[in-house]
C-alpha cells in the first residue's frame, strides 16, 4: 500500500507504459521505501548510520543483485527495472538507495567480467547482502582524469602487491569487497578485488560530508597489500573498460536516485502550497507558484523519460548507449536538484528546518551532479560522440 495523496493526480510514482511485473516491482520498491526507509532516514542521516539490517531486508526482496544472472543469485533483470527500483527507494532515503545501486554495479562487473570461479565465490553472498562492496576508481589526484591514477599493482609470483590510495570511496570500511582499479603497467589499468582484512588494506577517517551520511565515505589505503592473482577480474589491461562499463549503468542508477528524491519533494511541496495560507488564501492560488509547479513537473517527467529511455538502450546494447546514459545522468541530476531546491523554497522557513525532510533531499542530491562522472564529463562524452568523424 503506497501512501497516495488526497489529490487526484500525483507524480510521486509514474507507472505509465510499464509491464505488469515492472509495476509490481516498482510497487515493492515504493512500499519498502515508505515502510523501511522513510521512517528512519532522518535518524540515519543525523547519526551517520549505515543500516546493515535494512540492506539485508532489501536483499531478501532481490534488490542486491538486480541485473546479476539468476545463476549466481541475482534477478537477471534489465536496467529499466533497476531504475524503477532505485527511483522508488529514493523516495524514502536517497543515500541508502544510492549505496544499493553502487553495490549492484560492483556485482554486475564481477558477473560480466569475472571467471566462473570468481562468480561462484563472490556473487551469491553479495546478492544476499551478506557481503558488501565498494567501487574504487577515484584517487586524491585523479577524479575526472581517471587514467592518471597512480595506484599500482606489481606482479610478484602468485600475487599482486598493491600500493596507492583511492579517495571518496562509498561504504569504505564497511564493505567486504573492494573493486580496485589500478595500474598493472605504465598505461595498463586492471580491476582487482581486495577483500577486507587483507594485510596492507586500511581506511582513512569517515569524511564529514554535506549529505549521503547514511554511507561512510573514506580513503582506501593500500600499503604493500598482497592480493592473490586469482582476484584479478577480467584480464590485465581490461580494468578501465570494466570500470567505465560499470559506470554506464551506475550513472542511470544515480539519475534514478535523483528522480525519486525530486518526486518526493515535488509531491510534498504540492501538498504544502495547497494547505499553507498567506494573505487570506492558499499559496497555491498564486500564479507564480502554479507555474513554478508546472515547470517542476515538466522537468521531472522529462527526466524520467530520458532515464527510462537510456535504460532500455543500455539493456539492449543499442548504438551510442553510453552517450544516452550520459545525457540521462546530466539531465536528471541537474533538473532534480533544482526541483528539490524549488520545493524547499516553496516551504519557506519550514523548508530550512531539519524537521522537514526537504533539506536532507537537497543535501543528498547535490553530489549526484558530481560523482560517477561529473556532469561536465557527461557533456564531454556527449560532444565527443556527436563530433566524431565517421
Amino acid at each position: 500500500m503506497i501512501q497516495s495523496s488526497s489529490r487526484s493526480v500525483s507524480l510521486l510514482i509514474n507507472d505509465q507504459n510499464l509491464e505488469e511485473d515492472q509495476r509490481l516491482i516498482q510497487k515493492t520498491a515504493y512500499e519498502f521505501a515508505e515502510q523501511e526507509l522513510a521512517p528512519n532516514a532522518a535518524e540515519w542521516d543525523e547519526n551517520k548510520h549505515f543500516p546493515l539490517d535494512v540492506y539485508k531486508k532489501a536483499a531478501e526482496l532481490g534488490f542486491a543483485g538486480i541485473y546479476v544472472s539468476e545463476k549466481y543469485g541475482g534477478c537477471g533483470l534489465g536496467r529499466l527495472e533497476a531504475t524503477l527500483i532505485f527511483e522508488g527507494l529514493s523516495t524514502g532515503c536517497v543515500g541508502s538507495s544510492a549505496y544499493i545501486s553502487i553495490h549492484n554495479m560492483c556485482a554486475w562487473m564481477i558477473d560480466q567480467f569475472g571467471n566462473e570461479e570468481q562468480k561462484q565465490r563472490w556473487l551469491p553472498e553479495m546478492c544476499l547482502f551478506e557481503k558488501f562492496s565498494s567501487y574504487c576508481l577515484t584517487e586524491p589526484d585523479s577524479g575526472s582524469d581517471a587514467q592518471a591514477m597512480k595506484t599500482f599493482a606489481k606482479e610478484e609470483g602468485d600475487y599482486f602487491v598493491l600500493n596507492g590510495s583511492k579517495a571518496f570511496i562509498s561504504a569504505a570500511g564497511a564493505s567486504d569487497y573492494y573493486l580496485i582499479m589500478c595500474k598493472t603497467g605504465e598505461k595498463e589499468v586492471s580491476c582487482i578485488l581486495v577483500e577486507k582484512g587483507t594485510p596492507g588494506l586500511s581506511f582513512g577517517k569517515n569524511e564529514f560530508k554535506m549529505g549521503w551520511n547514511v554511507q561512510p565515505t573514506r580513503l582506501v589505503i593500500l600499503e604493500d597489500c598482497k592480493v592473490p592473482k586469482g582476484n584479478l577480474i577480467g584480464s590485465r589491461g581490461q580494468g578501465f573498460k570494466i570500470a567505465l562499463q560499470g559506470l554506464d549503468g551506475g550513472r542511470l542508477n544515480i539519475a534514478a536516485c535523483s528522480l525519486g528524491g525530486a518526486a518526493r519533494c515535488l509531491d510534498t511541496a504540492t501538498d504544502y502550497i495547497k494547505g499553507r495560507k498567506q494573505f487570506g488564501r492558499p499559496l497555491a492560488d498564486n500564479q507564480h507558484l502554479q507555474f513554478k509547479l508546472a515547470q517542476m513537473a515538466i522537468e521531472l517527467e522529462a527526466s524520467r523519460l530520458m532515464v527510462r529511455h537510456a535504460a532500455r538502450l543500455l539493456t539492449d546494447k543499442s548504438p551510442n548507449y553510453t552517450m544516452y546514459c550520459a545525457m540521462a545522468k546530466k539531465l536528471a541530476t541537474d533538473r532534480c536538484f533544482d526541483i528539490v531546491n524549488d520545493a524547499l523554497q516553496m516551504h519557506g522557513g519550514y523548508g530550512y528546518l531539519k524537521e522537514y525532510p526537504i533539506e536532507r533531499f537537497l543535501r543528498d542530491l547535490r553530489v549526484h551532479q558530481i560523482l560517477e562522472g561529473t556532469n561536465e564529463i557527461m557533456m564531454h562524452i556527449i560532444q565527443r560522440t556527436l563530433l566524431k568523424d565517421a
Partner: protein
Amino acid sequence: MKALVGVKRVLDYAIKVRANPQKTAVDLAGLKMSMNPFDEIAVEEAIKMREAGKVKEVIALTIGDKNAAETLRGALALGADSGIHVLTDMRIDQDLQPLAVAKIFQKIMSTRSFDLVILGKQAIDDDCNQTGQILGSLLDVPSATFSSKIELSADGKSAEVTREVDFGLQKIRVSLPAVFTCDLRLNTPRFANVQNIIKAKKKPVETVNLADLGIDVAPRLKVEKVEMPSERAGGVIVGSVDELIQKLKNEAKVI
C-alpha cells in the same frame, strides 16, 4: 492441504472517496485500485501456512472484470501457487453482493477440493463483513471470523483460532475444513520480492466466465443513491438553554 484465498480489487485505501456525478455509486474512474488490505493479510497467512509445511498449495481467487487480473497477479507475486479469475463486468463494489460471492466460491469449490478458505474479514469498499460467514453456512462448515491468530493442529483436522471480538479475545477450536476471515493483527503482509514477481508470470491462471457458472448472482439489495455526507456547517453560539433545546428539537431534530 489446499488453501483457497479470496482477493478483491478495491479502491486504494488512501484515495479520497467521492460519489459519481449521477450519485449512483462511488466514483472509480481512473483512480488507483489495490488488493483489499484484509485480503493481503489472508494471502500472507496462507503463504505462511505453506512455508510451515501445513498447507501444500495456495490458490487465489478473484471475481471481477479483466482489470482484476492484476490483483490476482499480485497474489501470485506474493507467493500463491495459482489463480482462478471469475470474469464479470458487474460492479463488484456494489452489485455483486456477499451472498452471490459466497455462492461463486461454493460453486468453484464444488469441483475442486479445498481444506481451508481464507478471506479478509471485509472489503474496504462495501464493508459488508458477510461473505465468510455466508460461505461457511453454505458449505456447512465452521467459520472462524475476525481471526487474529490461527494455529492448525498437527493432524490437520482442526484449528485453534483467536478471534478479536467486542469484549476482547476469544479462543475457539474448529474442525477442518473451515472458513477463516482475517482481522488486522493476524500478520504483517510481506513485500512481493522480485524473484516471486518474475515467477508469477509463469504461474497458471484459470479464467471462468461468471455467466457460465449458472448461479443467481442478482443483487438482493438495491442501491438507491450514493452521496457524500453533507458539508460541515458552521457552528452557532446559543444564548440560553431554551434556545439550545429549541434548536436540538427543531433544527438538528435529535430530540
